[in-house]
């Protein structure tokens, strides 16, 4: 962990130093012409659709049309031509959609200094390139509360994609939220190893239901776990978008609200007072990256009030990973009075008490 923290901060310093010289406000030449590149189908029901919905809201707010290209895989050979086609046709704000666009966007941003690039879930930043992501541990923490409120057994399940920082923090936050409502709650997590694999998600959700788990949370791209929950007569909580659209079992969803970030951000770019951030934008509920759609009818009014009060507290500055906090092995991860810094969040490879996992 310490080694990781150190490499993170060393890399961060190097990054900061490399951008420091060039750090100037970005000035857009001509009228804003945004364009969006989506790595899968824009109506996938999850991640990409949330971005496409934000695109439509930005169109309305700013009175521009934003053309979109779908199914541009996370390969440099596919990304660069699509982006350059848009730029040749006058686009000057390129909106990405994937972690796998990071390197190609970095190269393109250096090649086209007059074009601004905004990429969700990216890892690269620069003078005219900014990655952004949401602090989903805040919303999943609140959905964990809803899950515990809906659960009778206190045994919660969670279907997750791959075990690394930004997934692990949703699992931990879910368990910590659940324990706010029920101090004995447990979260059994299954990693499917894939973001979009309905077959594995179904197998995982069914296995969880058979163990007597009565609420299934998720951090994968399809609504399958929610559909299985409905079939089994239990509850669930969703991710990406409000999944009650697909299943009445959904009691709460961690949703993306990218328009709340993109609209003011693009307005700033147009006005000429936008500046990129060396580590990208890491958006809380208050800043408009993530939020919750809550709650279903299995959550009592009293519990719902508790959840909304926590949401207010988080918007007011409460940090989910505040010390003293130990991992499930008993190692101290956050000291009393401190909060987990962003580098440690991205590198999170430990679980809190109450999380039961394969590894």
């Amino acid at each position: 962990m310490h080694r990781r923290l150190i490499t993170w901060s060393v890399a961060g310093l190097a990054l900061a130093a490399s951008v420091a010289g060039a750090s100037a406000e970005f000035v857009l030449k001509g009228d804003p012409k945004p364009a969006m590149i989506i790595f899968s189908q824009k109506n996938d029901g999850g991640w990409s659709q949330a971005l496409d919905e934000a695109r439509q809201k930005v169109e309305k707010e700013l009175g521009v049309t934003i053309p979109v290209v779908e199914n541009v895989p996370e390969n440099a050979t596919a990304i660069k031509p699509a982006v350059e086609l848009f730029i040749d046709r006058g686009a000057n704000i390129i909106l990405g959609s994937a972690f796998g666009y990071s390197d190609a966007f970095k190269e393109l941003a250096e090649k086209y200094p007059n074009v601004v690039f905004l990429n969700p879930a990216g890892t690269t930043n620069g003078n005219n390139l900014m990655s952004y992501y949401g602090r989903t541990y805040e919303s999943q923490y609140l959905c964990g509360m809803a899950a515990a409120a809906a659960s009778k057994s206190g045994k919660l399940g969670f279907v997750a994609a791959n075990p690394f920082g930004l997934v692990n923090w949703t699992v931990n936050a879910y368990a910590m939220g659940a324990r706010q409502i029920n101090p004995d709650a447990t979260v059994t997590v299954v990693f499917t190893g894939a973001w979009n694999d309905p077959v594995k998600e179904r197998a995982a959700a069914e296995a969880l239901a058979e163990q007597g788990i009565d609420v299934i949370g998720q951090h994968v791209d399809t609504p399958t776990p929610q559909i299985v929950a409905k079939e089994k007569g239990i509850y669930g909580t969703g991710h990406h978008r409000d999944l009650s659209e697909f299943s009445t079992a959904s009691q709460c969803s961690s949703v993306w609200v990218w328009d709340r970030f993109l609209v003011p951000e693009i307005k700033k770019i147009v006005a000429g007072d936008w500046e990129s951030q060396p580590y990208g934008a890491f958006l809380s509920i208050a800043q408009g990256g993530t939020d919750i759609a809550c709650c279903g009818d299995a959550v009592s009014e009293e519990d719902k009030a508790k959840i909304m009060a926590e949401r207010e507290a988080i918007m007011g500055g409460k940090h989910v990973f505040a010390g003293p906090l130990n991992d499930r092995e008993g190692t101290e991860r956050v000291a009393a009075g401190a909060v987990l810094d962003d580098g440690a969040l991205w590198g999170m490879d430990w679980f809190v008490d109450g999380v039961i996992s394969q590894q």
Partner: protein
Amino acid sequence: MADIAKPRRFGRINLEIRDDMPMWQQSLAFLAGVAAGLAVSVLILIASGVGPGALINEFVVFIFTSPKNISAVLVQAGPLIIVGLSAGIAFKARFWNIGIEGQVIFGAIGATLVAINNIGPEFLRLPMMALFAALGGMLWIILPALLKLRLQINEIITTLLMNYIAFNFLLHLLYGPWQDPVSSFPHSQQFESFERLAPLGWQSLNMSLLIAAILVVFCFWFMVKSRFGFQLNFVHSNARMAKALGVRVAVLTLAAALLSGALSGLAGFAISAGIESRMTQSFFIGYGFSGILIAFLARNNPLGIVAVAILVATLMIAGQSLQVFYQIPFAMVQLIQAIIVICVAASEFFIRHRMRWVD
């Protein structure tokens, strides 16, 4: 009675099987197939509301004259040519290698292994990466090849299944030991400058295209000119007869399979060292099955493979342009790509058959 004896004045078309057709006529049939496919596609585009004038002025002119676009097509074509050769050489030996994707993944794993462990001095790094990539590809085909030769286990099944094992092993590496220590994100660390294929100096072309060209020359010599190629032709036409006449069919099949694996591995090297500059989770997408399609359409001829690979690359880039220019849905792009491929495949009928009008 009299009108029965009188022959009807209708003619008919006789189909005759043709043994051989000169190369220039075959090329003409191929081009006619492309033209027929384009004609149908244009009708579809016009029917969906794209103006014919706009189509010719912007689209056709753009695709064939913009240097940026020509280079995008060639960059895309490089790895496609190599996987096409890989499929072609295996199919020539009637070894149905469906596992190109897995061998591409293992090629990249071999190259990345050398890069991140700093194996060999700097000036030898790229050749070492290429060598390990070829070995990685061979490693991933040797088991299906031996299973086929020793136990008559169908290689279509085994090579296909090996793809899934390779992908899951790739995920294991990227979420485990090879995770980027700088960002804690699931891709390998970036290659050093001396671990990347140098640019050729025009647009975004790099050495990977040159590697593809060298491999084409090698495969042309090997498959068309050499004694090995002659025997391979024999095995392709009639394996039993070849064996009866003393050709060592098993040795030949094993050699062709290993060469196929090595070529796929080198494609993995060309993609990771030439295009992505690191190992990602998605660099191989689209290459496995494209390779099979390309070899099939080119009837395993190395020069034909070059032509078809460029056609497939053009279809990929043109598909993006159609979306960018006219905002037509991706499904329409796939429809158009399929129509062109079907027309080219159908042109094969006229190569194999002669049509004669009989009175």
